[in-house]
């Protein structure tokens, strides 16, 4: 309890006096999360400063979503600590949640609501004062260029609009830290450029964690790159020094090689299993007693 009381001013008052660049907005320290016996992430540590855009990369299933869910207060870690905007994500979860905007992988939209009423609702539960709510919603609508559809049910909007409503939801309460999971997915090239500009603009006084599979987006936008592979951080470096010698694509493939090899092995195994189960090969060669049972799903995939 005492530790909490001491920690809060450190994050807020003390660092405010320092230059913006030196203020750590995200401090992740040896974060581990188990699902049953399986460790989704293991000893994940990285930091991000105020004003930075952090590119958070990794193959699918490497633990990106798990890490982001812990940082946004959705779920607690099994061990390790994380501080966002100076608050502990577990001990002071509510303070963290108030200061974080989060765009999850699946846009959390209520289909029957209009963007306007939806954003008003989000602003309300994120703690925006009644008097400021209208202005906050209007600002978010304009920033994401969705004010022309503000009064149509979200369910009737195109995918690009839905995605932008979800982005508006993450920024409506003017959070200090913004976590975006694949924000430009489903957008046309013009909208992608618009959203990138928006992210760039947001970062002037905020911290953005950007998870994406579009590597050029990272080189364009991010000050820092963190790559996670099989639950562990394999790269934490500034974009400039990382891409000085080779381009990001090569870096990504090299550091996530173990992940890729594992995928290929699994695929090859499945292929062999399907082969053994193929009835045509079985005619010439009687199946062995302990041959793997025919797997219909594996056979379908060939």
């Amino acid at each position, binding site marked *: 309890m005492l530790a909490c009381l001491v920690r809060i001013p450190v994050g807020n008052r003390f660092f405010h006096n320092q230059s913006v660049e030196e203020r750590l907005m995200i401090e992740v320290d040896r974060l581990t999360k188990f699902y049953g016996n399986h460790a989704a992430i293991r000893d994940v540590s990285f930091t991000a400063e105020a004003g930075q855009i952090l590119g958070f990369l990794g193959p699918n299933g490497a633990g990106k979503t798990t890490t982001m869910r812990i940082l946004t207060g959705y779920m607690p870690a099994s061990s390790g600590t994380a501080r966002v905007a100076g608050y502990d994500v577990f001990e002071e979860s509510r303070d963290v949640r108030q200061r974080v905007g989060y765009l999850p992988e699946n846009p959390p939209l*209520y289909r029957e609501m209009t963007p306007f009423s939806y954003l008003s609702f989000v602003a309300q539960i994120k703690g925006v004062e009644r008097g400021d709510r209208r202005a906050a919603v209007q600002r978010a609508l304009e920033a994401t260029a969705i004010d022309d559809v503000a009064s149509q049910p979200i369910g009737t909007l195109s995918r690009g609009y839905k995605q932008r409503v979800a982005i508006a939801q993450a920024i409506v309460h003017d959070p200090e830290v913004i976590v975006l999971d694949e924000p430009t997915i489903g957008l046309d090239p013009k909208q992608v450029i618009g959203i990138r500009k928006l992210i760039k603009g947001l970062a002037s006084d905020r911290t953005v964690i950007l998870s994406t599979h579009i590597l050029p987006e990272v080189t364009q936008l991010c000050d820092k790159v963190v790559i996670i592979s099989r639950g562990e951080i394999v790269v934490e470096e500034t974009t400039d020094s990382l891409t000085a010698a080779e381009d990001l694509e090569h870096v990504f493939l090299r550091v996530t090689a173990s992940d890729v090899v594992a995928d290929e092995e699994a695929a090859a195994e499945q292929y062999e299993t399907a082969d053994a189960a193929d009835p045509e090969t079985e005619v010439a060669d009687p199946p062995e007693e302990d041959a793997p049972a025919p797997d219909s799903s594996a056979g379908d995939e060939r």
Partner: protein
Amino acid sequence: MNNVWAIAWKELRSYFLSPIAYVVLAGFLLIMGFMFWNMLAQFSRFVAIYSSMQQPGMMEQLNLNDMVITPLLGNMTVVFILIMPLLTMRLFAEERASGTDELLLTSPVSTLEIAFGKFFGASLFLAVMLGLAFVYPAVLMYFGNPEIPQILTGYLALFLLGMSTIALGLFASTVTDSQIVAGVLAGGMMLMLLLINWPADAVGESMGAVLRYLSITEHTTDLMRGLIKVEDIVYYLSLISIGIFLSQRSLESLRWR
């Protein structure tokens, strides 16, 4: 409190923005209207028969409250148990299925506030339902002179019963992301509570008393007759508290998976 209100208001609006509100309201009023019309027709048949007997005092035995309103509301308890799960099944299962639970659980809102918000949102809809259903006693008040306090306690019984179903149905809706499963669970729980006193006579005195106390029917009868008893009110408030408590625990457990 602000958050509770925000979620409750959103929930109430969502009902009216989806077809479910209109379907449930129409179905509810239609069934209740059909029952009302039948009972009223039977009542006027009795009036005709009794008045033809020409015996003094016979007419005094005919009573609108006992012959129309009390049986109508009594039958409505069963209808309620079938209809309320349709309103509660979406409360949280839909959030989980569409991923909006991630928004709620990453907002500075406690799980208890979410549970209360959802509960009050559905309860407000219930209030609208019962308000509209007041048209039937209003017809009686216009043409006859039923006892109004007794009607009000009858509606209070339905309101308390409905809120209990909402609380338990909300819990059912938090344990699954399938609305169907949530609805069946809620309906099953309420039906079980309705029937639980059936073996009461066979299982011995003390056990029988417990089963009788647990049963919904035991706690609607007196209220519908116009008698407000503390134990009945306590019964409903207990069901509501248990439902909201379990919902909050269940929501909290979502974080730990």
